[in-house]
């Protein structure tokens, strides 16, 4: 990880940086949610930073710790040219779980963001293809949320329309529409 890069980010964003730490040598910046796109672009394209690879993109649910905001989306950036790394995080509240997409900055983010949507229910604004990726289309809920019980079972079956309507009515704003049939095998 790189202290110099963290210092430059703090200098660049000023008030946009909410907190920083370097626990166990991993330089981390928690920044304002609305700045993530511009910050990522800046981190990728600025000379001396050159974070040309998004190593990993994931989320954490702090529900059990009672932290506000509940979620964090975590970006692990890596510069292959300068051999340095940086972790950038944004807080995401439960009532408005939306973050701007970075999948046009690093293409790998496309699938990573789909995974975060699938498992945590955090949506990415302007993402071209916000579908589930690991779970099946009919799955109800987001399994890595801490309030999703580990031993809950959901047998895969074709649901009647009224059940889907009820599920959607009961979860306003969840935005996820359960589909039909075996995972779009045949529709083209």
């Amino acid at each position, binding site marked *: 990880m790189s202290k110099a890069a963290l210092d430059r980010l703090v200098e660049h964003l000023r008030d946009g940086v909410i907190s920083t730490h370097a626990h166990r040598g991993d330089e981390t910046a928690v920044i304002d949610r609305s700045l993530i796109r511009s910050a990522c672009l800046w981190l990728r394209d600025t000379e001396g930073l050159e974070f040309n690879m998004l*190593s*990993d993109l994931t989320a954490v649910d702090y529900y059990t710790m009672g932290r506000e905001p509940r979620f964090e989306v975590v970006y692990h950036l890596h510069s292959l040219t300068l051999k340095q790394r940086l972790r950038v995080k944004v807080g995401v509240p439960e009532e408005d779980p939306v973050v701007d997409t970075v999948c046009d900055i690093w293409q790998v983010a496309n699938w990573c963001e789909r995974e975060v949507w699938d498992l945590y229910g955090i949506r990415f604004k302007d993402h071209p293809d916000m579908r589930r990726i690991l779970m099946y289309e009919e799955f109800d809920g987001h399994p890595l949320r801490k309030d999703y019980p580990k031993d809950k079972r959901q047998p895969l079956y074709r649901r009647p329309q009224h059940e889907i309507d009820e599920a959607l009515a009961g979860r306003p704003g969840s935005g996820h529409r359960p589909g039909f049939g075996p995972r779009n095998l045949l529709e083209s």
Partner: protein
Amino acid sequence: MYGSDRLRSVSAPELDEGMPTEEMVLNVGPSHPATHGTVHIKLWLDGEQVTGAQVNVGYLHRGFEKECEAHTYGENFPYTDRLNYVSPMLNNVGYALAVEKLLGVEAPERAQYIRMIVGELARLCDHLTYSAAQVAEMGAFTPFFYAIKARDFLWDILEEISGARLTHSYVRIGGVAADMPDGWVERTLATLVQVETVIKEIDTLMTRNRIFMDRMQNVAVFSKEEAISHGWTGPCLRGSGVDYDVRKDYPYLFYDRLDFEVPIGTAGDNMDRYLVRMEEMRQSISMIKQCFDQIPEGDYQLHDPRITIPPKQQSYNTIEGLINHFKIVVDGIEVPAGEAYTYIEGGNGELGFYIVSDGTGRPLKCRCRPPCFMLMTALEKLLVGHMIADLVPTFDTLNMIGGECDR
């Protein structure tokens, strides 16, 4: 040249214009002999040419992270085994290093050397499995048996040290489960000689084989920039000409004490990804030999009552030892609150573990950064524009392991 000219001269004009075709949708998988592991690839075809592709993964999702969050740090090793199940030792090592980083401890020197040795043995297994699958699915079945035979020799060796052939769960937080057995070094060295012979055999049979070369060269070329943007790491990224190997660039364990070279491709095609792995196997063999020369005497595990269980003598005969054992098994190791990201060079690239601890014995979050998930993001691009017959070799060079991709 001569043949194609002649064909053109005798062909009818309407043949030159090509046959009228109609777009066709073809589903490959989820269960298909060529998709080792379950993955669904939906292809749009114009004749034999792929005009569009959509890759659907997730059929092997078992909820790795959810399970890890419900178990203690020590209990999670068997889950890591099942991520990349052709090189479980590397997953064990990666996970152990992540927890140790969060704890702020380091395993004894001897344990670290043992981890390097078993890790490189696992890498050999991974690359042997890759080359076996690669050639078999292109029709060459003989080298498949040679490679699988060599992998079996290595499994014998790994079984001897860990007790299990496939899912080893051998590494522990703060060290490894047991020391190397008597005579293991000699038997490993003897096995490596056999493996070396096998690698040479595959090399002789395949690498300069005309059919093999024609099907591998200039197929599925992926540029440096694209590979970086798609988060590629490991042999595939090196095949595209980027010099990045975690062992060289961010040395962990004692890789900085070893003398080895990182093979880099030039074209970024299927052939380069194959050649990089073939060379890496030779480097791994040399690394294991160097480790055996350098390995010091000493403990194979930390002796810290907060982290490792006490020796059996103590837990059976003293009340303190029994309580200590009980607390570590039931409550788990108490890892101070915080977060850490550790990455090692896995079989397919940067294998990362991002662990968040809330100060209890169970992780709040245990994320595995799966290298082949990142590789698979590019498969759609790799397939478009090629023949449908190129799907199988191209998919093989990515070496997707379902257990790791879908977790």
